[in-house]
């Protein structure tokens, strides 16, 4: 809703005057008042082709006398509405003051009935084997607006049934209703013409241009926006009925963009990740690469068990042993945290470092090529969280040079490594071998081989918490599936370690509990409660870090502070 109520205009929706912000089309305006105008081809983030004709509504404007320009009035003094003789498409019709719209008239219902029937005459109706079943607009609108029976007795058109149009996308042309959303997505978002129609009329067939394939890292968005089962994900195809999926709000961790996502899981197993709409971050899109991250949950190298000196143990024993080891090294301990940890974990890690005589704390930077869309140069999702919580005071480096020197000089002898492989971050194996290492991580790695104590870390899918993205937007993610059997839940690993180090337990292992502490201690979090963080996130004040040379360039809905200043 608009912040400036003065701007609102009045339209009449199904006989009721309502106030709504100007500039919207009828679909969007009606949705503000809970009125659904069914549509297939219209998508809020793509151009408007008006081809499906499902959103036909009746529209009229107050009449004006041609000669005098005076408003025409009915006998009772109300404005006379000149209804447009033909129904109009709600997607391409912008609202205007005084406009009358009917989304429920007989004509509108007949239009919808007609379009539904037409869409189904050549549709294979193979819902029982279709992945889209359960979230299919064709099914939904056929039920809501269709005739309920078929008058079609001719032979249906036959088209290619299974075409691999890219490494991750399969096409069933018989199911396609030719709405052109996928074509427009490629042209307008990816910026490359990849898909198009061949043939004509009802024989129109979606296909790739000769010699091209839909291999872009955003290809799976076409599957999301396909209103029917024409485009399906090779990864998800035939795996799970969508109505069995539990949907959990999450965040894409592959870069500091922090795409909003939905994790679909059933009985503790994740089956797919799809984007969640956030018009200030990722619109309705996300990269394909981020959708595959759930595979880390059941990856072969996943660290699932606690061990002390290679011997399996319980979580409590491991935490206790870790605390003892670190306390032995008091004064010579260093902590390596991660920009992949949640804000809450980073805060607790800072607290743990403080207890260890303010042990120097590092994080490992990860940079890659930005795509200018939804993958930024910073491949850690939460470096800004690490800065805000004070886990680190400066931008991290890719190689831990400083730490290597301290290990070499003997200044540091004990290491607590959380979520990072130190070998990858430039610490040679011989140095790791000499050091006393406690490793908390999601996967087996070279650091593990030299660590005394290993503790499994939960992936983003197995815990709840927050990240701060490149916009300094605080975003929540929720636990979708339980962690590996026997692992400590939530933030317990960190809160228990703190307790074991100090003998005190001020922190309960839930994000909400940690937030009561953070809101008191961290200026930017002041007054915030975990449960109050909106679904679309909350932009924090990042001015404390204005001077830091963040590496992100411009991407969708993000302009780096430096560029804003220059402009």
């Amino acid at each position: 809703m608009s912040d400036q109520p003065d701007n609102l205009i009045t339209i009449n929706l199904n006989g009721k005057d309502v106030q709504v912000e100007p500039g919207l089309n009828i679909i969007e305006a009606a949705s503000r008042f809970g009125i659904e105008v069914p549509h297939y081809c219209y998508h809020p983030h793509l151009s408007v082709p008006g081809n499906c004709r499902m959103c036909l509504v009746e529209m009229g404007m107050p009449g004006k006398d041609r000669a005098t320009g005076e408003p025409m009035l009915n006998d009772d003094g109300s404005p006379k509405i000149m209804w447009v003789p033909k129904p109009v498409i709600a997607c391409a019709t912008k609202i205007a003051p005084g406009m009358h719209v009917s989304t429920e008239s007989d004509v509108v219902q007949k239009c919808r009935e007609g379009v539904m029937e037409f869409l189904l005459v050549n549709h294979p109706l193979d819902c029982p084997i279709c992945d889209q079943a359960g979230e299919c607009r064709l099914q939904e609108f056929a039920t809501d607006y269709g005739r309920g029976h078929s008058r079609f007795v001719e032979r249906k058109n036959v088209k290619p049934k299974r075409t691999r149009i890219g490494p991750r996308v399969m096409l069933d042309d018989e199911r396609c209703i030719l709405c052109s959303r996928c074509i427009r997505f490629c042209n307008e978002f990816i910026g490359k013409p990849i898909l198009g129609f061949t043939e004509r009329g009802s024989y129109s067939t979606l296909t790739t241009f000769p010699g091209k394939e839909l291999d872009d890292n955003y290809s799976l968005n076409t599957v999301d926006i396909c209103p029917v089962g024409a485009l399906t994900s090779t990864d998800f195809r035939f795996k799970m009925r969508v109505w069995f999926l539990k949907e959990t709000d999450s965040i894409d961790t592959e870069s500091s963009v922090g795409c909003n996502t939905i994790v679909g899981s059933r009985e503790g197993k994740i089956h797919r990740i799809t984007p969640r709409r956030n018009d200030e971050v990722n619109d309705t899109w996300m990269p394909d690469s981020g959708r595959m991250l759930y595979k880390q949950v059941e990856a072969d190298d996943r660290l699932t068990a606690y061990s002390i000196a290679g011997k399996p143990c319980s979580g409590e024993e491991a935490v206790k042993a870790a605390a003892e080891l670190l306390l032995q090294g008091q004064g010579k301990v260093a902590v390596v945290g991660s920009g992949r940890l949640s804000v809450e974990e980073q805060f607790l890690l800072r607290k743990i470092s403080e207890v260890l005589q303010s042990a120097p704390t590092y994080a490992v930077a990860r940079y890659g090529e930005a795509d200018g869309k939804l993958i930024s140069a910073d491949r850690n999702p939460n470096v800004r969280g690490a800065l805000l919580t004070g886990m680190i005071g400066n931008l991290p480096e890719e190689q831990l040079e400083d730490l290597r020197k301290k290990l070499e000089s003997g200044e540091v002898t004990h290491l607590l490594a959380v979520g990072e492989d130190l070998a990858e971050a430039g610490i040679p194996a011989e140095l790791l071998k000499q050091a006393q290492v406690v490793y908390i991580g999601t996967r087996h790695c070279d650091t593990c081989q030299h660590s005394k104590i290993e503790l499994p870390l939960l992936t983003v899918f197995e815990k709840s918490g927050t990240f701060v993205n490149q916009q300094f937007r605080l975003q929540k993610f929720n636990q979708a599936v339980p962690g590996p059997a026997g692992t400590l839940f939530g933030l317990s690993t960190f809160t228990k370690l703190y307790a074991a180090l100090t003998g005190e337990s001020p922190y309960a292992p839930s994000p909400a509990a940690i937030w009561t502490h953070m809101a008191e201690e961290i200026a930017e979090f002041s007054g915030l409660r975990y449960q109050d963080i909106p679904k679309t996130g909350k932009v924090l004040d990042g001015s404390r870090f204005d001077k830091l040379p963040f590496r992100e360039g411009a991407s969708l809905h993000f302009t780096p502070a430096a560029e804003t200043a220059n402009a």
Partner: protein
Amino acid sequence: MIAAPKRTDIHPKERRMILKHADDPSYDTSVDCYIEHGGYETLKKALTLKPEDVHDHVMKAGIRGRGGAGFPAGMKWKFLDRKSGKPIYLICNADESEPGTFKDRQIMHKDPHQLIEGMMIAAYATNTAKAFIYIREEMPHGAVILEQAIEEARAKGFVGDKIGGSDYSCDIVVHRGAAAYICGEETGLIESLEGKRAYPRIKPPYFPAALGLYMCPTIVNNVETLCHVVHAVSMGGEEYAKIGTPNNSGTRIWSLSGHVQRPGYYELENGKHTYGDLIYEIGGGLKPGRQLLAVIPGGSSSKVWRAGERFKGKDRGGNEYDWAIEDVPLNFDGPMTAGSMSGSGAVIVVDDSVDIVDVLANINAFYAHESCGQCTPCREGSLWMKKITSRMTSGHARPEDVDLLASIGDQIAGRTICAHGEACAWPTQSFVAKFRDKFLERAERQAASGSGDIRLI
């Protein structure tokens, strides 16, 4: 080059303006021949006038679009968005493809310079930056003739830089179409001209006068319409308007086809003749022993008339009329008053030697084949209707098909992006409404012979 055959048997009732020289055996397509016959004099005259005054002649002449809709050309030009500051484009729609229509071809093949002159006058009047002739793929010779004619006209200074020594410059580009009926729909044409699939655009917002070719203000006029511009400016708008009847000024080329003795193109003064004159007198009447079954008055998409039906009522002027098909005036408004349209001026005569179901099946096959496939009702509806009528002709007609066809037509018309929705629905709607008995008869006949059964699939 293949020369189009000349028709020397010009009917005395014809009034030839556009085709004045076209069928003269000594007349050819060269610029010299055109100039010899007084060509390009009107362009020279126009260049001495202000563009607004040229436009004014066209307004006063009341030239209505000859492509199908009959919309006043001068009015169309008036809608041009001149505030945007963008260049204005003029497109000649030479994608003549409505079944039954073969008039523009005569002009382009036999008198291309008349079109070029008309275009340059129109371009000058509207301050067009560049003009295009979009000619259908199936008229390759026409394209070659036009290109050659433009080349010659350019050499004489009538096209290109500083036309006729004036400060105004405008070139014409001939663009060959993509062999699809929908390329004749003006926004489909524009898309095609831009190099894309000829998917008609949604209106609003893409009215060509504001957001046309390359999103610039654009005029799209039919070949015959642009030729009339020459005559309107030559004789003066008011003088031109005296030809024909009020609101139906000028002459019109009618393409007469079907079961008549003398099919062909006839240029007649608007409103001075009737469909009866055209079919029976000018067209030589039906073949011996045949009875009139139906007339399709304005291209295959117009609503059909059944022989013997009468049209009664009051016209806009309040005059009562009671017409048989033969009495309907040959102009823009007459067929509209009689519930159909003059469309592209293609009159198709159907006698009793054919089954009316077959006629509709043929028409439906065309419109299903030519539906661009962009929007749902036309795409699916046209093919469904085609499937039904072709099933009916192959011996599996059902009585319920009649109402089903009508219902499908009703679900298309008025609900599509472009007029192809109406074009494909109107034949079915009108055939079924007017020949209901014939459709049912066919179904019953087939049911009686035991061939009417169909299996549900």
